[in-house]
């Protein structure tokens, strides 16, 4: 059992803690060695778990009340003053309510504001559409200077939160609400922003996933191996911008069938980023984007919604099987065949 580096909780805790809990504790830990870190929230200190930082460093934490635009503007000002602000609210408010402040005050001025947004995707399903957020990847990645990260679980959230300090500009880290099971057993792996991680080796097919879809894709790959004898690669594309082109091109070359899976609208998300790399490669590839099909999700608890929208292992298996049945057009210039 491995402890999460430099902290006082164990991997067991990481398995039972939500990603936001781990985020809050990680940040509180980082505050001890980096006095430039400051925190801001908009009446969601407890909810986003930045409260751990607030408790440890009350003099460099600012709760602005329910005022997300003001919060992002204040974060920009703190950054202008030479500090490294971590701003936390729910994804829907970070990306849309305060969208222009993020774009003009933070991204355009290339300020080191780290936006840690919780309750992303449909993780807060029973709260209804006002609190769902299946647009934030699209919005954030279209802002120049912005780095966009979607960690697979709590341990990876901790890794991303630590790593984002070294990115000179703004970073958007999107996490869920949840109690999703962990993907990683320990922190003992190499994490680098912008570098995808192969979670399961495979040569017939590649699933490129982010966030909660990573674990489900791994499970799908295992089942497909057992039941269909298929060798499915699973790539954890935790950084959506800048995207790891090499990992995508390898998948095109090695497997020629790629499915992307994300808890986001298929328009503008991970899938589109992968698609443009494939299109630019000039190589033929059977490709599909899986996620929310340009619709608002219905009401329900997250687990029910994940299975309804096919974002669980079963849904992913179905997608892979249907893509295995598709034929290529003959391509004489395909040098690897």
């Amino acid at each position, binding site marked *: 059992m491995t402890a999460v580096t430099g902290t006082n909780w164990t991997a067991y805790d990481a398995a039972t803690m939500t990603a936001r809990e781990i985020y809050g504790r990680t940040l509180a830990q980082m505050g001890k060695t980096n006095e430039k870190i400051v925190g801001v*929230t*908009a*009446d*969601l*200190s*407890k*909810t986003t778990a930045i409260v751990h930082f607030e408790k440890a460093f009350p003099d460099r934490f600012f*709760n*602005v*009340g*329910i*005022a997300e*635009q*003001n919060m992002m503007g204040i974060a920009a000002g703190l950054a202008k003053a030479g500090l490294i602000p971590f701003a936390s609210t729910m994804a*829907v*408010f970070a990306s849309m*309510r305060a969208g222009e402040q993020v774009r003009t005050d933070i991204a355009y001025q290339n300020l080191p504001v780290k936006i840690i947004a919780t309750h992303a995707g449909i993780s807060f399903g*029973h*709260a*209804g*559409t*006002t*609190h769902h957020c299946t647009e934030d990847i699209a919005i954030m990645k279209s802002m120049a200077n912005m780095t966009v990260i979607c960690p697979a679980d709590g341990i990876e959230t901790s890794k991303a939160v630590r790593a984002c300090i070294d990115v000179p500009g703004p970073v958007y880290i999107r996490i869920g609400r949840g109690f999703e099971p962990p993907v990683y057993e320990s922190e003992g792996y190499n994490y680098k922003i912008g570098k995808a991680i192969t979670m399961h080796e495979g040569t017939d097919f590649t699933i490129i996933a982010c966030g909660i879809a990573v674990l489900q894709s791994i499970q799908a790959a295992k089942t497909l191996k057992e039941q269909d004898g298929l060798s499915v690669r699973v790539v954890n594309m935790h950084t959506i911008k800048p995207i790891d082109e090499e990992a995508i091109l390898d998948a095109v070359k090695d497997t020629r069938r790629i499915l992307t899976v994300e808890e986001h609208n298929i328009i503008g998300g991970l899938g589109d980023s992968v698609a443009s790399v494939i299109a630019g490669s000039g190589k033929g590839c059977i490709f599909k984007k899986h996620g929310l099909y340009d619709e608002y999700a*219905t*009401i*329900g*608890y997250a687990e*029910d*919604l994940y299975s*309804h929208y096919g974002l669980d292992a079963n849904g992913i298996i179905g997608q892979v099987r249907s893509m295995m049945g598709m034929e290529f057009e003959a391509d004489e210039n395909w040098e690897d065949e």
Partner: protein
Amino acid sequence: MPITQEERQMLEKTACELRLKIVDVMEWSGGSHIGGSLSCADILTILYFKYLNVDPKNPCWEDRDRFILSKGHAAAGFIPVLAKKGYFAEDELRTFNHFGSPFAMHPDSNKVVGCDVSSGSLGHGLSIAAGLGLGARYLKKPYKTVCLLGDGECCEGSVWEAAMSISHFKLTNVITVVDRNRLMIDGKTEDVMSLEPFSEKWKAFGFDVVEINGHDYLQLTEAFDRAWSATERPVMILANTIKGKGVDFMENNVVYHYASADSEVCKKAKESILRTMGGM
């Protein structure tokens, strides 16, 4: 219209039943914004059972009064009122929050019959109310639009943009109500982000501010009568309330902003409501 003794008793009884239903919904849904639902229960009751000119049999009737729950997280208080009013069966509330239900933590006008505007992202409702007010005036429609906000919600700058417009356009057909329970999520409003002098701020924005006890039906009646007959300045009703009102262990307790509860806790909550309000 002044309130009679009989009418007052009827409303208090309805509000008591509503509070019991709010507790049921907390249990059925797996958790709800119970504190802020209980604090506005009397406001919702008097609106739906005395003031709003609406017809549950004809929910889209063009001339109906409109109601916007800008503090959308109080859906657990609002949706049971709609059921009580007859828009749908009370039994349907059992589906609250569950897969495919029309009812979630925040009200959705695409799904909930009788709900005029979807809400849940704080600070949107009053602008929509201003738009309805302008539209009604242009179309020569007689209806009023009532918008209920949370006090914490008034931290949002957009609330004040809307307030400025309502005052500028002299929208006396829009009635603003703030549920002043003095708590938000992270603590007391005055500790997190002070709102005071709150009444003076609304006055400075051009409103006729009527400050009342939001659980007192005589005062609620006076305030809504004044609002309904306003012709000069738009009325803002500053309703001082108690978060968690009616359940002794929830009153003024920030922990009950959002909570889930097992049947044992719900039973205790209902007993408390019946003890304090069931006597009438």
